[in-house]
């Protein structure tokens, strides 16, 4: 499950109305989420959750579910 807070952050950054996110959703399935825009999504997430990712951590993420897990790990760690 993708939290509403993460979902809202992504939607706002990509300027899209709504999208049905599941754990397996990958960036290329979401409108406007291309390789150039990717970094803006990451920055928006870091800002919203007040966390900082390591480079390799971002490179390892394969889908939205893994992003959610990483955020949770950072928040509880």
């Amino acid at each position, binding site marked *: 499950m993708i939290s509403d807070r993460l979902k809202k952050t992504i939607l706002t950054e990509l300027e899209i109305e709504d999208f049905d996110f599941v754990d397996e959703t990958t960036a290329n399935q979401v409108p406007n989420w291309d*390789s*150039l825009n990717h*970094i*803006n999504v*990451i920055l928006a997430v870091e800002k919203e959750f007040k966390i900082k990712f390591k480079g*390799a951590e*971002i*490179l*390892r993420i*394969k889908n939205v579910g893994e992003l959610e897990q990483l955020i949770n790990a950072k928040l509880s760690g």
Partner: protein
Amino acid sequence: MFNSIDIIKLINLFVYDPHNPLLFGTSLFLFLFFGLLVFYRIFANNKNIRIIGVLVFSLFFYYKAAGAFFIILIVSTIFNFYAGKIIASLKTDTTKRLLFLIITLVINLGALGYFKYTNFFLQILNDIHLGKFEPLDIFLPIGISFYTFKALSYVIDIYLETFQPVKSFRDFSLFMFFFPNILIGPIDRAATFIPQIEGDQSITKGDIGKAIFLIMFGLLKKVAVADYISINFVDRVFEVPLRFTGFENLMAAYGYAIQMYCDFSGYTDMALGIALLLGFNLTENFRWPYKATSIADFWRRWHISLSSWLLDYLFRPLQIKFRNVQPIGNIAALMITFIVIGLWHGASWMYIVFGAIHGFYITFSLLTKKIKKKFFELTHLADTKSLKVVQIIITFHLVVFAFIIFRAPDFMTVSNILSQIFNSFHPEVIPQFLSGYTFIFELMAFAMLVHYLPEGWRYKVQEWLSNTPLIGQALILAVVIWIVIQVKSADLQPYLYFKF
């Protein structure tokens, strides 16, 4: 009876000859590959023997193209196999692990750099008067850029823990040596190739139809279109552009874009088809690139295995590194990536400028994104068919312009071609051109027409081929080979991509 000269001739067929690599279109290749397929069939139930058969064939294939330099391929394979193991054995996110990755990268890229860029670097030192250096006699081992990138994807994925090191050296060697993609790609990733070795390489009726289609379509693109228009038209104009009118220069620029695509994607199609007959699916490398509606879209359709490699292993890490200075960070990552794309093709300023221009195109598009979006909304053009057509035409011309720089030997030639196109176009030569170069024009028009057809036709042909009985498939293949022989004006031209 064989006399001694025949035997020597026969032996020579199997010895390295720099002018005669074992290209996919040659009769010797077709003959030997047929032998390999029979071998495959006989040992259908013994995977180990089949794989060893492909390994031996691959080494021979590479030896025919690179001679003694096949040693470098073997050394690189052994080195990266153990580097992967060592990196995997070190603890996550430790300095030691990172250090080991860096050493591996430096050794791989150092070897690539030595063979590819030493003389270019010495030339730059000469040009900026930092000394006087004679160029060194360095031979570029064919395919080194491709197999080095394959190996790097393997070690980096292990470092990122998105892929486990392979246990069997035999399997890793097959990934590195695999002859269909060793000379000019596609740059397959270990993560998609190695699991296929662990599978059973069975092929379906549909695979056979697809493979025959790819081999025929690739052969036609390469020999009947690319080689023919290059020898008989494009090369001549690029050699002395001032001898031709602006119209002819423009046609040659279009012709080169068609030639480049048909040559490179034709070879890749054959590689994909040949690999498929052995039970392996290689990465798709082209997806109708001239249907792109933007330059970013073009790079998602052109030489996909290289652009996605650089996207994953260069652009993304740089983008993350520079993420706190936006939008400059994004632009810097873009420009560096595209200059590397240019440089990857060879050590020359022409290639660097080619890459930089593409980087500039995408940067411009990125910076004007918001304005364009507003404009399209105001004029109700957004998501319309006519906007799409205009975008395709503009993108195609931007690509053609960059390809002129890619193809021309120097900037003088580029400037001559442009000045002919813009200052002495001479539209009155069009009827003359059409009557003098009828077949060239027809080939170019036909190639573009096929390119812009809706994509479904290809699958229909593949399905039809799959359902054709074996004898019919053989007949169709024979007809295509006959057509190719008819069109072939001279001996096989070396593939354009070989020097990279």
